[in-house]
């Protein structure tokens, strides 16, 4: 991996930012501690020096010299400065040989640098000092070294150099490491995605099993891929079915037309062949139309045209159309729409859905049987439109399958149809957020269209 690429990774940027931030905060913290200590220490020394100067100067002049000597003699740390000068500024006693420049004789404490006049050492150092005029016009100087503060500053700086900067460098190194690791996973993921895009839908992104955030993302992407694969396979299955179901009538047509061209010259025969070819052609066109309708409905765009409508009006319209058909087939047709519901929906589609159910019920019920359309409220308050018949019924094992495109129950395969009616009903029910359920009518089949009541739907 090239370096610039590494520096652009989000993890590297994050660690770099974090390292910089923690270094800056340490710097501020240490600086603040040093500053506060210096202020406090200087204040304390200033107060001490003033008190001492007050005490010494309040004594008689001859005692002062002695005091200075005692003061110096007791200072084993060599932190104290004291000296006495006469009225002409000549050195009398103490460890300063001259009155330091920059120290006015004003009785206030000043921060200065001096040469200490010492037998053993000759030290140039930073002190706080005060110069007091004496009654005999001499000058008393008292001071205290603040070299400790300088030492403190050195320690702080060294700690920073030795502590914070290596820590920052470590953080950056960690960042590089982490980004390298992430980058490797991203590269692996990218390669997998490329393979998937080339059509290998079975590939999945690598999961490390650490259940970190990257893993979680990977897992949900993999789940999405599972779903896509399932849908693609389903579409593939449907396409195969379509091809098969279209091919069957087309092949019949093809065979018959060829045979007629090659053999028959009888006009009556030709008429018959043309009629049968048209029947097959209409069947294939019917399949295509139904498929297009299903995908149009599944698209969901029709929801835009939904309006409030009365389910009893829908059922009444269907009953109006189908009652004579049932009569013609010598079936008892029973309609009871005492419970109704106002729903949001597409009238045309709901009529089509109910009509398909009634059409099926009539188609699969032998003469002398009964088809019953009624409405009731289920225990959850939803209005159910029930279409029940006394026909052959549907085995429980086929309840899900009958909604699949082109599925035709083995028991009813001899009855004409393209096996798309219930898929259409289901698509329409889904579009409306309605449920469609099958149960056993003993005898016959029961189809329930469970309509969401209007208030529930608008709340959803």
């Amino acid at each position: 991996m090239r370096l610039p690429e590494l520096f652009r990774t989000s993890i590297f940027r994050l660690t770099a930012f974090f390292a910089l931030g923690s270094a800056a905060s340490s710097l501020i913290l240490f600086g603040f501690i040093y500053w506060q200590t210096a202020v406090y220490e200087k204040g304390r020394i200033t107060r001490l020096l003033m008190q001492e100067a007050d005490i010494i100067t309040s004594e008689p002049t001859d005692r002062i010299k002695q005091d200075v000597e005692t003061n110096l003699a007791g200072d084993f740390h060599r932190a104290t400065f004291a000296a006495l000068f006469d009225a002409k500024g000549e050195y009398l006693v103490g460890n300063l040989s001259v009155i330091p420049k920059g120290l006015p004789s004003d009785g206030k404490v000043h921060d200065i640098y001096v040469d200490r006049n010492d037998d053993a050492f000759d030290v140039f150092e930073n002190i706080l000092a005060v110069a007091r005029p004496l009654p005999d016009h001499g000058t008393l100087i008292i001071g205290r070294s603040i070299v400790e503060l300088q030492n403190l500053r050195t320690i702080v700086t060294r700690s920073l150099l030795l502590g914070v900067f290596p820590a920052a460098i470590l953080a950056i190194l960690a960042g590089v490491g982490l980004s390298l690791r992430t980058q490797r996973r991203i590269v692996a993921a990218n390669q997998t995605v490329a393979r998937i895009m080339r059509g290998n839908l079975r590939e999945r992104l690598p999961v490390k099993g650490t259940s970190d955030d990257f893993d979680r993302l990977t897992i949900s992407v993999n789940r999405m891929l599972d779903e896509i694969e399932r849908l693609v396979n389903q579409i593939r299955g449907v396409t195969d079915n379509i091809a098969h179901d279209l091919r069957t009538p087309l092949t019949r047509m093809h065979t018959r037309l060829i045979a007629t061209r090659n053999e028959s010259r009888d006009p009556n025969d030709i008429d018959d062949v043309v009629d049968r070819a048209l029947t097959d052609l209409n069947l294939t066109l019917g399949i295509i139309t139904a498929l297009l309708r299903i995908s149009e409905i599944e698209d969901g765009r029709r929801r835009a045209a939904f309006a409030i409508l009365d389910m009893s009006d829908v059922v009444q319209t269907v009953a109006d159309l189908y009652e004579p058909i049932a009569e013609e087939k010598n079936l008892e047709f029973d309609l009871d729409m005492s419970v109704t519901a106002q729903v949001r929906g597409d009238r045309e589609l709901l009529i089509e859905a109910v009509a398909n159910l009634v059409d099926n019920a009539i188609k699969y019920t032998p003469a002398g049987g009964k088809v019953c359309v009624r409405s009731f409220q289920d225990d959850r308050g939803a209005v159910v439109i029930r279409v029940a018949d006394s026909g052959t019924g549907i085995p429980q094992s086929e309840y899900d399958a009958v909604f699949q495109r082109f599925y035709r129950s083995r028991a009813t395969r001899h009855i004409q149809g393209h096996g798309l009616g219930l898929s259409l009903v289901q698509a329409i029910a889904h579009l409306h957020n309605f449920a469609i359920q099958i149960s056993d009518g003993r005898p016959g089949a029961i189809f329930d269209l469970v309509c969401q009541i209007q208030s529930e739907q608008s709340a959803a």
Partner: protein
Amino acid sequence: MSLAPHDSALSIAAHAHSILLVEDDLEIALNISRDLSRRGYSISHTATAQDGLAQARRGAFDLMIVDRMLDDIDGLTILETMRAEAMSKPVLVLSAMGGSEERVKGLRAGGDDYLIKPFDPEELVARIEALLRRSSSARETSLQVGPLKLDLIERSAWRDQREIDLLPREFKLLEYLMRHRDQVVTRAMLLEDIWQYKFVPETNLVDVHIGKLRRKIDGPGEPPMVLSVRRAGFMLSAPA
């Protein structure tokens, strides 16, 4: 009871109505032209929307048939332009796009009817007839065809002196047939116009309804008025 196609019934009304056909598929255009001219219509055909609109503006036609998917443009744009320019001639839209959304789009653009490809020539002719004669449907209070009389206020039907007892749905069906007297009405037209059914069911729904009505209209010994037209649909006519 059934009449062969090309029979008098189908060509009665077609006294030289002229039709403008805008269709880019030459084979389909040729077939439509042949079917329609055989029934006495005069056809002028153009293959592009531009020519179609130019001819429409000249106005020398009674009805226009326009295909939706033309080479240069959606046929609906011609229709919209025509309606915007206040040309009110009836227009029948042809389309391979069968979704109900597409149909609504076609009707909203100003189409008077929408026919999905492929279609039977009989279906096309029946719809053209219906469009050309539509203007006469005023607000009558009663309808009469030969001995058959329909009172739209009292909702009663009579054939000569015999009162016919009709269910509401049968009344609607008869009213529709009487308003389209001497015209072929197809199954799809009946489903669309009477029951607002936009799809054609697999069962012989319409035939059953017509059969029930026919038994009530044409009593024993009476000359038949409800006729089946082979391969096309049904027609109500006064007995000859």
